[in-house]
């Protein structure tokens, strides 16, 4: 496979995963903005998902329609969902002969959907949840289309590597955002709504309830987001999947490239696996999340260098 093609497929998957993550995050946050008017603030999210200068972010303030407009549709916000979908589509366009026609059409339709005036009108005057739902729904359609139509070759492997790498980063990021909102101070015994919203955003609330029978504890949320291998958004699960798809590349890799990446992914996996993070150690938790993110970025950089030929 051409290095450029592998690169594009990888990024297409990353942008799509990021799109899904951002949309779900926005949906939960919007709902909480309607529910928890007292403590709610959009600022932590804006700081992470906007590349606008701090001044502009402050100006947007807590005005939900404005925030949604900025994070979803603003063409000038490099991290907006609109730009994510556009970039996913541009990448898909450049590799149209390596993804199936169905996947391309699905992405193309997604692009036309987010450009549709109705989405804008829904956000501003109608029900933003409806708009977000239709976008999330289309994202799921994409994942289904990939699963059903794509051949299980090199392209599919890069697609999944991109997807799980991005998902691991997102989960670590979202956890970090929530914990930052709480100043990493989790020793208060009262229930923390922020963590419930975190589970909503990661589609993990139902799993939590089933596992813990309504006993809501911050520590257990943390365990699920980091370590639960049955939870498709946990950092541990994502890394295992990442490694699984990476291993399939072995026969199609230069031996030295494979070795480099195997080392990096293996190290990241083990660092998560053999960590023992407790809420009481807020400094340790902060460092751990920081280190995990750095290792994930390191893996992405190594793919870029050893497999995509960009040094």
């Amino acid at each position, binding site marked *: 496979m*051409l290095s*450029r*093609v592998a690169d594009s497929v990888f990024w297409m998957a990353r942008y799509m995963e990021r799109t899904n993550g951002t949309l779900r995050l926005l949906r939960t946050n919007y709902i909480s903005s309607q529910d928890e008017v007292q403590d709610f603030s959009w600022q932590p999210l804006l700081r992470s998902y906007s590349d606008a200068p701090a001044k502009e972010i402050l100006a947007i303030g807590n005005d939900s329609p404005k925030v949604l407009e900025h994070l979803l549709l603003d063409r000038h916000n490099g991290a907006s969902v609109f730009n994510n979908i556009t970039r996913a589509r541009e990448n898909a366009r450049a590799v149209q*002969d390596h993804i199936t026609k169905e996947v391309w059409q699905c992405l193309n339709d997604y692009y036309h959907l987010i450009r549709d005036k109705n989405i804008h009108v829904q956000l501003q005057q109608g029900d933003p949840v409806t708009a977000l739902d239709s976008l999330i729904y289309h994202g799921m359609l994409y994942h289904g289309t990939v699963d059903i139509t794509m051949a299980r070759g090199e392209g599919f492997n890069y697609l999944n590597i991109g997807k799980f790498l991005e998902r691991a980063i997102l989960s670590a990021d979202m956890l970090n955002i929530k914990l930052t909102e709480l100043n990493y101070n989790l020793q208060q015994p009262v229930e923390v709504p922020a963590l419930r919203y975190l589970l909503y955003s990661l589609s993990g609330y139902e799993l939590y309830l089933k596992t813990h029978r309504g006993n809501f504890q911050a520590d257990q949320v943390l365990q699920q987001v980091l370590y639960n291998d049955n939870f498709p958004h946990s950092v541990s699960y994502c890394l295992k999947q990442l490694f699984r798809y990476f291993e399939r590349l072995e026969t*199609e890799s230069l031996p030295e490239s494979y070795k480099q990446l195997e080392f990096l992914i293996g190290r990241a996996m083990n660092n998560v696996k053999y960590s023992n993070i407790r809420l009481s150690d807020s400094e340790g938790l902060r460092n751990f999340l920081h280190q995990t993110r750095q290792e994930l970025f390191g893996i992405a950089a190594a793919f870029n260098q050893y497999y995509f030929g960009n040094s």
Partner: protein
Amino acid sequence: MEEHSLLANYNVQPRVWDEMFGKDGIRPTYRNFVSAIQNLSSDEMTHKDELAKKLFMSQGITFTVYSSGEGIEKIFPFDIIPRILEAAEWKHIEEGIKQRLKALNIFLKDIYNQQFIIKDGIVPAKLIYSCPNFVRQMVNVEVPFDIYTHISGIDLIRDHDGTYYVLEDNLRTPSGVSYMLENRSITYRIFPDLLPKNNVRSVKDYPDLLLKNLVALANRQKSDPTVVLLTPGIYNSAYFEHTTLARMMGIELVEGSDLVVDNHKVYMKTTTGLKQVDVIYRRVDDDFIDPLVFRPDSMLGVPGIYGAYRTGHVAIVNAMGNGVADDKAVYSYVPAMIRYYLNEEPILKNVPTYQLAIPENRKLVFENMDKMVIKKTNESGGYGMLIGSAATEKEMESFKLAIEEDPRSFIAQPIISLSSAPCYINGVLQPRRVDLRPYALYGPDGIDIVPGGLTRVALKEGSLVVNSSQGGGSKDTWVLG
């Protein structure tokens, strides 16, 4: 009459050949089709029209227009009414194009080697050497199987009596073939069952034929040579076509930066290192293909690829330097080439062409400018053109000045009216002018022409310009079996 409601307002212009209406009413080729659609309500027709647009949009068969910093997706206008050709007409066209291509191909071989045609006084040397598309680097280069014009699109038009004329030969990188294929796949969605009922010949073999020819050009003794399609990238207006063809042939779509040349061999950069490339179907123009030999500022090409080609390590399709054969001034010598190389009479006519480098021609043309089309010899896409009947005095004067300054770069042709075909526009069937571009594939086993081609249509009423850049659209083209 109620039953002909769709056709009620169809007015054929005088002295224009209409593809559907003859002097005895609807021509036999169209009868089946018309009887199938004439009773459809205008709502149903409009619905079909909208369905076609939606299909193009969702399949991403679009080109991007950049305005105010943001790309806007547009579809190439498609008219739902097919253009229909009968078997005998097609046979005539097919034979004519094959003959023409044979001669043009020998001409290219000759002009870049011994130049008998110049020595025998058939074509003036001055005409060839003054042609900006005569590529000196191609002189004495050995080309695999002596084939230069692997893929060509020959533009045909019909005069008021129905005679076919060749308007242009496109021998460099003709585009539009994907629209021939896509238009067909849209037609069977909007007119279910009509294709088999009319016994329309299939066009779907095109990618297979093309791939067969490309594979045959590989130089290495290898059962599975590497064939790639070289595209200028996603911002090229024909990018959709490049991806479609690469996908249909199952070959790699590469950009210039994906290829490197080492020791006169071309490699592509893959995740497992470098892999040698044997055949390149390039959609990058001559000027841009190798910055070391042609335009040094080109970012689209591959440095050193010309050397690899010259040494025979890679085959490039189409050959470089073909522009000398489809130059608009050289065009007027094609009938002479057919006689000279093949000793045959041309089957398809040329449009009479006046080279303005000849003073008598210039005088004649200036006196009859309102009946002439003036074209720049080196431009296409409907640019650099003046249609005398529609031009103002001022435009004519400025063309005259330009011609006096550089007469070699202009030719003149009498205005040929172009046939009209029915189009469904704004809820009614109206005649619009069309041309026809069949695509010919020249391989080691001979020439194949897929039955059909691209019918381009001037969607503006009264317009004679069918180019997509000038408001033209396209139609599906049926050849009946």
